[in-house]
C-alpha cells in the first residue's frame, strides 16, 4: 500500500515535469529504433553501393552515404542498438559491482569498509579513460568486452552511494528489529536495507548510461571500440574525420544523435530524481 501511493505520486510528479517527459520520449524513441531497426531502416545497413559513394543527403539518402555507398540513416538506426546495449549492460555491471561493494562496506564497517573505501580511492585516482584504453587494447575489442570494461571501471560512484545509504539506514528501527529477530546478514542486506536504498542507485544508473554512451562512442571513434562493419555512431564519426573536407554529413548527424541521446538520459535521470518524493530524498541523503 505504501509503495502504491508512492508510485502514483511519483508518476504524477514525473508527468508534470516537461523536461523529464521529453527525456523519457527520447529514450523511448531510441529503444524503438533499436528494437525495430530492421523495420525502420530504409536500407540494409551494410549494403554497398558503388555508384553512390559519399553522396550528400538527398531524397533517397536523407543523411547521405558513406565511403562504401552505405546509407547513413540506416546505419545510424542500427547504431542505436549498440548505443542502447552498451549503455544498459555497462551500467548494469557497474551497478551490481557497486551495490555489492557498497553494501558490504556500509553494512559491516570496520576494516572491511576501510579496505573497500581505499580500493575505491585508488580506482578513482587512475584516470578512467586511460584504464579503459589500456585494457581494451590488450583484450579483443568486441562489443561485449567494451561493455564489461566500461562497467568494471564505473562502479565506484555507485558503491559510495550505496555505502552512504547503508550507513544511514542500518541503525533504523526496522533493521535493528530484523537483526534482533535473527535474520541473516544476507537477508537483512537484501530484504530490508537494499529496497530502501534503491532510488538513488536508479537515478545514478540512468545518469551513468549517458556516460557509458559517451565512452563507447569515444572508443569507437578512436577505432578501438565496436568493430566494423557493425555500425556504431562513433565509428561513423571516424569516417567523418577521415573525410572532414568532403563529407560533413558523416560528422554532423552521428554526433547529434549522441548528443540527443545523452541529453535524453540526463533529463530522464534528473526527472526521476526530482519526482521521487523530495522529502524522502532529502532524509535519505542525510
Amino acid at each position, binding site marked *: 500500500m505504501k509503495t502504491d501511493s508512492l508510485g502514483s505520486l511519483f508518476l504524477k510528479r514525473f508527468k508534470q515535469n516537461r523536461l523529464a517527459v521529453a527525456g523519457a520520449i527520447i529514450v523511448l524513441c531510441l529503444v524503438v529504433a533499436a528494437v525495430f531497426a530492421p523495420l525502420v531502416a530504409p536500407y540494409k545497413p551494410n549494403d554497398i553501393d558503388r555508384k553512390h559513394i559519399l553522396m550528400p543527403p538527398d531524397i533517397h539518402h536523407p543523411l547521405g552515404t558513406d565511403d562504401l555507398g552505405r546509407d547513413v540513416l540506416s546505419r545510424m538506426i542500427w547504431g542505436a542498438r549498440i548505443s542502447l546495449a552498451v549503455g544498459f549492460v555497462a551500467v548494469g555491471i557497474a551497478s551490481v559491482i557497486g551495490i555489492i561493494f557498497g553494501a558490504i562496506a556500509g553494512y559491516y564497517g570496520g576494516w572491511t569498509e576501510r579496505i573497500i573505501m581505499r*580500493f575505491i580511492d585508488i580506482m578513482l585516482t*587512475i*584516470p578512467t579513460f586511460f584504464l579503459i584504453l*589500456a585494457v581494451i587494447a590488450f583484450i579483443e575489442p568486441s562489443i561485449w568486452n567494451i561493455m564489461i570494461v566500461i562497467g568494471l571501471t564505473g562502479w565506484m560512484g555507485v558503491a559510495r552511494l550505496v555505502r552512504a545509504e547503508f550507513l544511514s539506514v542500518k541503525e533504523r528501527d526496522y533493521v535493528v528489529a530484523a537483526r534482533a529477530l535473527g535474520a541473516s546478514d544476507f537477508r537483512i542486506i537484501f530484504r530490508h536495507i537494499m529496497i530502501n536504498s534503491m532510488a538513488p542507485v536508479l537515478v545514478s544508473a540512468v545518469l551513468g548510461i549517458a556516460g557509458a554512451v*559517451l565512452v563507447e562512442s*569515444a572508443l569507437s571513434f*578512436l577505432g*578501438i571500440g565496436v568493430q566494423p562493419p557493425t555500425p556504431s555512431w562513433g565509428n561513423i564519426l571516424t569516417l567523418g574525420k577521415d573525410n572532414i573536407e568532403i563529407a560533413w554529413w558523416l560528422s554532423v548527424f552521428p554526433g547529434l544523435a549522441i548528443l540527443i541521446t545523452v*541529453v535524453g538520459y540526463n533529463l530522464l535521470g534528473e526527472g526521476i530524481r526530482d519526482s521521487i518524493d523530495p522529502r524522502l530524498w532529502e532524509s535519505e541523503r542525510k
Partner: protein
Amino acid sequence: MFKYLAKRFLEMIPTLFGITLISFFIIHLAPGKPTDALSEMNPKMTPEARERLEKLYNLDKPVIVQYGMWLKRIVRLDFGESFSMDRRPVMQKIWDTKQPLLERRLFITFMLNLIAMIIILMIAIPVGISSATHQNTLYDKITTTTVFLGFAMPSFWLALLLMMLFGVYLDWLPISGLKSMSYDSLSVGGKILDRLKHLVLPMFVAAFGGLAADSRYMRSSMLEVVRQDYVTVARAKGLPEKTVIYRHAFRNALLPLITLAGLSVPGLIGGSVIFENIFGIPGMGQLFFNGVMTRDYSLIMAILTIGAFLTLIGNLLADIGYMFADPRIRTGR
C-alpha cells in the same frame, strides 16, 4: 595544520602502491607477447630471432618477479625500456631532458591541463554565481541549457565540428600541432601568437566539458549556501547584497567546488588522449594512445602510474586549497 598535511602525505603511500599494482597486473592479464610488435609481419623475421627478442626483455621470468623488478625501478622514476621499436627508456619518452621544457610530453600535457583548469574555474565560478543569484531568469535558463548541452556533447565531436568550421571552411585557426612550420623564423611576438593560435581549439574543447560540470556545481552550491542561516542573518543586518554574496556566501560555496576540481583531474587527464589525438598534440595522451595501439607494456604502465600520480597531486592541492578556504581546518578545528 601540519599534522593534517602530514597525514595526507602518509595516506598517499598505500594509494600509490595500490596504483602501481593495479596498472601492472591489468596489463599482464592480457594475452599475447609484447615482442610481437617488434617483429611485425616481416618476411625476414625468423623464430629464432623472435625468441632472442623475448629473452632480451626478461619475459621468461615469473610475473611477480617482473613486478618486483619494475617496482624497484619506478621508485627511482625509471620505468624501463619501451617495447616499441625504438627501445628508448620510457621516462625519456615522457620527459626528454634533451629537449627544451616546452617540447617535453609530460610538460605539454601538464600545462594544457593546467590551462584548461584555470579557464574552467575562471569562467565556471562567475557563471555559476551569477546564474544562482539570477535564479529562474532568462539568463539562468540559457546558461543552464548551454551547460547541459556542454555536459552531453562528446568532446571529440565538438573538436571535429570546430576543426571543420575554423580549420577547413573559415581557415582561421591551425588544427594540428602546437606550432607552425615557420615557427623558428618568427619573431618573439610572432612565436607567442603562433602558439596561442594553436592552443585556441584544443583548449576550448578541453575546457568545455569541465566548464559545464563545474559551473553547474557552483550554481547549486551557491543556491544552497544562500539559504543558510548566516546569509539570512547577514541580509537581515542590512548588508548590501553584493557584500552578502561575495563576502559571506562565496567562500563557503567555493568549498565543494575545490573538491570537485580536484576530482575532475583524472577526467581531464584521460580526456587529453582524445584531444591530443585529434589535434595532433605531441603530449603524453598521444604517446599513451600510440602505446596502447602498439602494446608498449612499459610505456602504458608508466603513463597509467604517472596519470594517477598527477591525480593524487591534484587531490592534495585541492585539500590544501580547501584548508585555506575553510577556516575550521585552518585553525585546527
